[in-house]
């Protein structure tokens, strides 16, 4: 029972991160219909920017206990940086290809992804050495429920992620801007006829998605302080799993991405805990293939007939 609850707890903590990343994938897919391969690299950038800021602000020394607002400051700064990067990527790389075939955009996205990875590895940026994220949240056990210890890192991490998702939910479904985003995603041409500034909405979508990815990067670095070099395969795999989460939930569907994120994490961690810990990647991708076969549009997605 303890093992079950512990796995559940971990699943929610990791799932909230997958969900944050998946949101960026799904929002871009919803508006522009392409897989933004560079999104996972924005997430990595978020983790590394947080690390750099923490070091610059002098929290790298062991034993130093930065105040809670320092963590918040770094989180916001990382989100702002990655939001700016996301804006720039869209403006310079994707916007010129708005009318191009989807394949070209997909390849450009891979190009941007490779660029972010490899520029990040240059010695003027983050280098090729793995680093250790200084702990900004004191690691203590908040309480014990049925033998499962609740770590402060997990509770604050999942709490922040869920709070961000609630903000996003409000933004998309309760504000004018959100309505414009949904309109662009539904039909770009008609939305622009209705007086919506499509370019601005798409830019905003990228900024939003990238800053959520940066938040996920920050929270991931808090939970797993060992940071791999920017082009390391584990990062790519993480981003890929988040993308799988978006597809499973129904690509283009914001609530689907959240659902998919938690689902993927739970399947992965329960599989690792009860079946075999070595095959965790296999569970995720097998679920993807099963979902694609049974319900190609995802759990919450609706399949749209193609008009000729």
């Amino acid at each position, binding site marked *: 029972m303890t093992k079950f609850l512990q796995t559940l707890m971990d699943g929610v903590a990791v799932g909230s991160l997958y969900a944050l990343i998946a949101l960026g994938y799904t929002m871009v897919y919803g508006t522009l219909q392409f897989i933004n391969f560079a999104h996972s690299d924005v997430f990595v950038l978020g983790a590394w920017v947080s690390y750099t800021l923490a070091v610059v602000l002098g929290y790298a020394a062991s034993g130093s206990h930065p105040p809670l607002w320092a963590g918040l400051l770094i989180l916001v700064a990382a989100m702002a940086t990655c939001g700016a990067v996301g804006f720039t990527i869209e403006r310079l790389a994707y916007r010129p290809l708005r009318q191009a075939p989807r394949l070209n955009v997909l390849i*450009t996205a*891979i190009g941007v992804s*490779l*660029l972010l990875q490899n520029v990040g*590895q240059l010695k003027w940026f983050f280098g090729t050495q793995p680093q250790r994220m200084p702990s900004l949240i004191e690691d203590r056990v908040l309480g014990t429920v049925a033998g499962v210890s609740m770590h402060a890192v997990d509770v604050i991490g999942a709490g922040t992620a869920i709070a961000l998702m609630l903000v996003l939910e409000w933004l998309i479904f309760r504000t004018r801007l959100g309505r414009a985003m949904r309109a662009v995603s539904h039909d770009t041409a008609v939305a622009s006829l209705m007086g919506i500034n499509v370019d601005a909405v798409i830019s905003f979508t990228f900024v939003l998605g990238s800053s959520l990815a940066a938040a996920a990067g920050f929270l991931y670095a808090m939970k797993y302080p060992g940071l791999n070099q920017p082009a390391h395969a584990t990062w790519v795999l993480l981003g890929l799993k988040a993308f799988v989460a978006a597809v499973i939930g129904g690509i283009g569907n914001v609530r689907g991405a959240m659902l998919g994120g938690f689902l993927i994490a739970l399947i992965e961690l329960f599989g690792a805990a009860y079946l075999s810990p070595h*095959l965790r990647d296999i569970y995720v991708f097998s679920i*993807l293939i099963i979902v694609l076969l049974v319900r190609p549009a995802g759990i919450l997605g609706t399949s749209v007939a193609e008009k000729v």
Partner: protein
Amino acid sequence: MMARSFLGAVAPLAVGFALAVALHLAAGSLIAPFYVKLLMDIGINVILAVSLNLVNGFTGQFSIGHAGFMAVGGYAAGVITYYGSFLLFGNTHVAEGWLTGGDLLFVGGCLFGAVLAALAGFVVGLPSLRLRGDYLAIVTLGFGEILRVLLQRTGDVLQTAEQVEKAGVGTLATSLGGSLGFSGLPYYTDLFWVYVFVTITLVVALRLKFSSLGRAFLSIRENEIAAEAVGVNTTRLKVRAFVLAAGFAGIAGGLFAHEIGTSLNPRELGFQKSFDVVIMVVLGGMGSVSGAVLAAIVLTLLPEALRGFSEFRMPIYALALILMMILRPQGLLGLREIWEMKWLKR
């Protein structure tokens, strides 16, 4: 008429094989080992780029798991030659001479690897090619990752003839060296075999392009709905292109596995390798066979030229890819072959 079309079919093969023999004879005496290795690398990359072009260029689908099929072929061929050598000859030394029994075993292994890779292509392609194009990208990436995890979980390579004789087929097929890689494979790959397979790949790709089947592939790329409307069975053809490409990737994997100075391990054949091949196809021109060849040659030689600044290699590639897509989206040659370019005809 009959004679001419027969000649037209055989002549390119004959020329290619003659070139392969000439390269074989020149290797060792006229060509230094370093350049032999470089020429073999070029040949293997040409096979990879031209075959991926069938999917990404001709048919307009997007596969980023080519290295996965290469791994299937490489490991399958490795099992055949390595364990086969133990069973047939008692050791894994490369026999002296040309076209020995070992060579035949090696070619048989490569062909077996090709069949297995094609089969894997069918299994992966059939479900995803029914869906929208970009799902193929994710599924192929996922396939590569699953394959990598499975290969890393395999057992150690058996080292002696006694062990191999005692082991069953199941044990042999799962003793692939795990994450350390399949080491000890005999170096059967030489210029002759590489360029024989390069010739076959090129002839198949070119004849395909100018056949009705190739036109049907291109119609899917240009407009899938329109192709369907004029009676092209798009799903069947997409799967066919995908299986064919996977088969050739399997051969390239077999050649790669038995090449001197390479290491057949799960990390080596990850998505980084797949991306390398995608870059070759895109830079050369989507749907241009000669473009893919050109890009494969240039991108194999470029790292050697950029040796001093190797850290800039990937950023430069990435930037080139983005700029190419924005400024010249069809790639260097586009759909055309190099002998169809306007500036050559004048």
